[in-house]
């Protein structure tokens, strides 16, 4: 059986007034039925762009090449009619920022029910209303709230409405693009709980986009780490977080320290510098200007994603297992021992998260 979602060598370039902007440069991934895949990375690394191509929702100025197969069919080359039928029925999206992603002047019940009758005209109005009620109850909101407008709900409730809406047509795949970014930590946990419970219960495939590797580590089966439009590491979620092989994954993991881990308080967190400008990417490995392991060799060529004697693919020439000084290792050190890292990186505060991305 074909994968729920298979992306092959996806390239997306935005045409802007200031020149072409390559946002995604050759990403491949696949999700099987019932599997959840996380995509992590900083703002602007292209992870949301990848998500937008799943239902061909990328902006008009985006040039796309490659394949995006949903249930075996390429959405990028589909006819519009077919694409509309695939949208929401085969795969649905939970957008970030529910306040703006919900129509402010429509009752939420109507917004949830809209795709149901759109994709299956045999459903009567009453049946759709019942289904909307069930969906609301599923995400822990009383069915009577269906008559409310988005502005009358709290941020967490709105995000759960988005989840209910995504499940309306019983899709086999859900794409969640930073579903909890705008929420505070307590509500974040609650919404994530609702999402993962439902995904497991219904046996759905999930593509979860987040800048927070720790969230992905606890909710996903597998994780991709993206940097400057490419995948730099791929592997089982817990392993990537606990034992990152790519120096970037290491920095990302370290920027979300685990509560209760005393070592994490002393380990240098974060990463110096800013993500590169996609218009003028550094030569060689795009990460090398910020990398603590960089050598002259790093500037020669961009390393491909490959398995280096380790069990999972990593795009780094130093990832042969001998040279890795990851944050995970640093975490295991005693606090009194000096941390073996490049000078000047130690006190860099945690970098801003993905919040400014939308």
């Amino acid at each position, binding site marked *: 059986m074909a994968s729920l979602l298979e992306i092959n060598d996806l390239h997306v370039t935005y045409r802007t007034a200031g020149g072409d902007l390559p946002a995604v440069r050759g990403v491949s991934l696949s999700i099987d039925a019932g599997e959840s895949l996380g995509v992590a990375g900083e703002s602007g690394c292209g992870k949301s762009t990848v998500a937008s191509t799943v239902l061909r*929702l990328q902006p008009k100025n985006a040039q796309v090449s490659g394949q995006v197969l949903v249930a075996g069919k390429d959405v990028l080359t589909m006819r519009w009619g077919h694409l509309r039928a695939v*949208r929401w029925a085969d795969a649905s999206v939970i957008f970030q920022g529910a306040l703006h*992603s919900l129509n*402010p*002047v429509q009752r939420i019940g109507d917004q949830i029910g*809209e795709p149901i009758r*759109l*994709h299956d005209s045999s459903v009567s109005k009453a049946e759709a209303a019942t289904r909307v009620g069930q969906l609301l109850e599923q995400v822990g909101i009383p069915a009577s709230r269906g*008559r409310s407008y988005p*502005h009358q709900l709290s941020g967490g409730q709105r995000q759960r409405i988005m989840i209910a809406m995504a499940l309306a047509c019983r899709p086999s795949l859900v794409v969640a693009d930073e579903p909890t970014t705008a929420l505070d930590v307590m509500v974040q946990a609650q919404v994530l709980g609702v999402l993962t419970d439902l995904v497991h219960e219904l046996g759905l495939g999930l593509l979860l986009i987040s800048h927070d590797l720790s969230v992905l580590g606890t909710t996903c089966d597998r994780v991709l780490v993206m940097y400057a439009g490419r995948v730099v590491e791929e592997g089982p979620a817990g392993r990537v977080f606990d034992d990152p092989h790519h120096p970037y994954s290491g920095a990302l993991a370290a920027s979300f320290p685990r509560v209760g881990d005393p070592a994490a308080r002393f380990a240098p967190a974060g990463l110096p510098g800013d993500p590169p400008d996609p218009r003028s990417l550094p030569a060689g490995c795009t990460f090398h200007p910020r990398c603590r392991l960089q050598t002259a060799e790093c500037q020669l060529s961009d390393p491909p994603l490959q398995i280096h004697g380790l069990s999972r693919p990593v795009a780094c020439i130093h990832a042969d297992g001998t040279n890795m000084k990851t944050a995970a290792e640093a975490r295991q050190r005693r606090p009194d021992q000096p941390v073996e890292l490049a000078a000047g990186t130690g006190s860099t505060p945690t970098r801003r998260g993905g919040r400014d991305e939308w």
Partner: protein
Amino acid sequence: MSAAVETALAGAQTPVDTPAGPNRATGWVWFGRKLLGSFATLMFMVVVNFFLFRVLNPHPERTLARGRATTPEQIAALTHKLGLDLPLPEQFLVYLKNLATGEFGISYQYSQPVSRLILDRLWPTVVLVGTSTILSIIIGLWLGTVSAWNRGHKFDSITTTSTITLYSMPEWWLGLILFTVFAVGIGPIPGLFPIGGLISPGISALSVQGFIDQAWHLVLPIVTLTLAYLAEYSLIMRSALLDEMGEDYLVTARAKGLRDVLVRRRHATRNAMLPVATLVSLNLGFIVSGAITIETVFSIPGLGLLTTDALRIPDIPMLQGTFFVFSAAVVIANLVANLLYGWLDPRVRV
């Protein structure tokens, strides 16, 4: 400012408890407040109406007697007859009482009750303005919508250029042009439409033939006003929709698998209507201006022509009467626009 306004103001500004959440009562409180606000505005108009005429023109009896040989006794008699010998506050009370009973006084010009003259002349204006307003809203919103969705294309540039030109045009000049070209005829174009008036002589207004004849007389004025009004609706609708196009909820709608047509109709249009409703309610006075000037150009015996005729005398009670009717119409239309806004946008119903 008078006591009446102070009271009305206090009433309008009384804080009202508004419970949060979806509540039917909230809607009613909101409705009540809007109603009260409109009433306060109307009271303000009433006061303006009184003072405008009394303060700026403290001796209407002299204006009236102007150009005629009058003795001081005649003037005094006239002053008494018009109630102008009373102290100002008392005059105001009399004015209020008369207003409440629909009494605007006797026209200097026609020596008939102003209220009856107004009632006689009301319907041509209502037909003219009503038809043009409805037509212009429909056509204007449609033009604005289509040009926004085809932004930068030929249709858009033609529509935007013509609407902004129409917007820069005095509506009565457009009337003059249409009159010259289509009623009188210019060069090879023969005059198609009647040259002014509401009905041809010798036809009964109540017969079928009279009805058709009047409709035929109203074609050019209605076309003129419709063109004049629609420019603004079209321009606002276009920019409101362009504003709305970048919104995230439209991506959601597309993601659900809606056709573009449905995305526009169900989601974008209603949200874009909000700024349109606001601006329309602020520009209602413009509709009244149109009625006055177009009736003058096409000699249609409505309220507008009644007003411009009264200006020449000047027929003060008549002016006061028509001014009140125009103000009240604007206040009511404003209320309707506000209620419409509330119906469109649940967020303001608090």
